[in-house]
């Protein structure tokens, strides 16, 4: 699903955020990217969604070389990726339903079908009764679940999450990570950046470890203890 081939990223005026990074994530696999703050986790995810472009190297996503995707092709690429952010990035002036609906509106799905899929997504994250509420009236954990519903509502093949539990207490964090594992069960490829090592260890999934932009360890799910 994802292949990094000798990928380096140097921000303008900065040092290298990623250095000659090579790894692969298979279809339907779930993996964590971890490392200290500033190790390059967010940068790695941004390269996948073409929020940033690599300085060197190749990234192939679902058989498509990202270097061949021009500016005009970025929206289409992003519609195939579900994204979850640390600060959930919900639109606070719209209901939960309207927030989750947005990717389907962008995808020009008809209203009846939209409503069906939004409810299905909200049900998966356990928030079906909240569809008429505004995000501000929800707890932090519920808000993040709405963010996840929004990320999966268009049934992307790939789900990427950047510190999705960064603002949550440990109990909620476990629940959220459990949700990601469920989506993997349903066939979605999942890549989660997190620095919460204890939590990652509990999940028993593959772990890619970055240090100053270099891949220093790649632990298979079966080897995680």
């Amino acid at each position, binding site marked *: 699903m994802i292949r990094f081939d000798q990928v380096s990223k140097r921000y303008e005026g900065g040092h290298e955020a990623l250095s000659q990074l090579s790894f692969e994530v298979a279809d339907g696999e779930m993996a964590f990217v971890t490392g200290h703050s500033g190790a390059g986790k967010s940068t790695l995810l941004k390269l996948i*969604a073409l*929020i940033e472009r690599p300085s060197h190297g190749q990234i192939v*996503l*679902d058989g*498509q070389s990202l270097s061949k995707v021009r500016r005009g092709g*970025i*929206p*289409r*690429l*992003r*519609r*195939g*990726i579900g*994204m979850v952010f640390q600060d959930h*990035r919900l*639109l606070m*002036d719209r209901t939960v339903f309207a927030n989750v609906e*947005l*990717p*389907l*509106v*962008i*995808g*020009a*799905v*008809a*209203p009846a079908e939209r409503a069906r899929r939004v409810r299905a997504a909200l049900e998966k994250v356990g928030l079906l009764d909240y569809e008429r509420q505004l995000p501000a009236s929800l707890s932090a954990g519920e808000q993040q679940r709405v963010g996840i519903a*929004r990320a999966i509502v*268009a*049934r*992307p*093949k*790939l789900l990427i999450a950047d510190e999705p539990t960064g603002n949550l207490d440990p109990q909620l964090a476990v629940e959220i990570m459990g949700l990601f594992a469920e989506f993997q069960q349903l066939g979605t490829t999942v890549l989660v950046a997190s620095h919460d090592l204890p939590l990652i260890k509990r999940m028993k999934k593959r772990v890619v470890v970055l240090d100053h932009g270099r891949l220093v360890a790649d632990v298979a799910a079966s080897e995680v203890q």
Partner: protein
Amino acid sequence: MSAAAPETAEAPRSGRSRARRVAGWREHHGWSAAASLRRLAGRPVGTFLTVAVMGLALALPLAFYLLLANVQSLGDGLGRNAAVSVFLKPDQAGPQAELLAKTLRERADVAAVAVKTPQQGMDELATMQGFSGALHALDEHNPLPYVLEVTPRADLDAAAFERLSADLRGERAVDLVQDSGQWRQRLDALLALGRRIVEALALLLAVAALLVVGNTVRVDIASRSEEIGVLTLMGASHAFVRRPYLYAGIWYGLFAGVLAVLLALAVEWALAGPVAQLGQVYGGRLRLGGLPPWLLLATPLASALLGWLGARLVSAWQLRKAA
């Protein structure tokens, strides 16, 4: 790579995919139009202010247009249809006067001819204040000529009227033709100037309306930079992100155009009374020249176009900056 129907997919050009693209396009436009309308309704005060400023700016040229149209119809009522006084030469007596009147009555551009004898003229003068003393001094000798009061057909235009006037002047028996020609010319020149001023004003105020919408949309986009960022991350195209703002511009323009028309109709209504009064004074020759239906329809449409244009110019610039 998504299972969801992608926005404007570059799918093969089969009939079905074309139908789906059209459906998707309609879906997007319907959503954007409704969403932008909801946003405007969500902050009624700001929306009202923008619409009010824009509407007033557009109502102003309409009101001037109305004013001009009425001054023109006033001019028509007073000048063009007024009777022309044709003074015959002093040596022309009653039979010649009746003969000329008869030939004039046969003209297509003449509605009526009345013959006024010197005695009638004298009687008229006598009823006027201050003249009776002077008439006594004339001592029975009546110096007044025969006068024909020629009433032109009501629907004559300026050129036809001019022709009639020239023909009358050309008659051998005629000494002097007193018509409102010169007065008309001056009024026409003034009206032409007025029209030019209204046109210039309309242009300037249209630009002002454009700027009002542009600024409102600019502020709107600036306050929604976060939303724009989220939409972009979720794969919204530039066109999709921009569309609600274009619709907002169209709504602002449409509402402002309707407001402008309503204001202009209010002015028309307010003018109706005084004009009717004036019309009575001038023997019912005066009617209120209202706003023509095409203008009532064209104003909101042109205004909507203005709003769209303002939103388009600003959003192109503002969203590029945000990208």
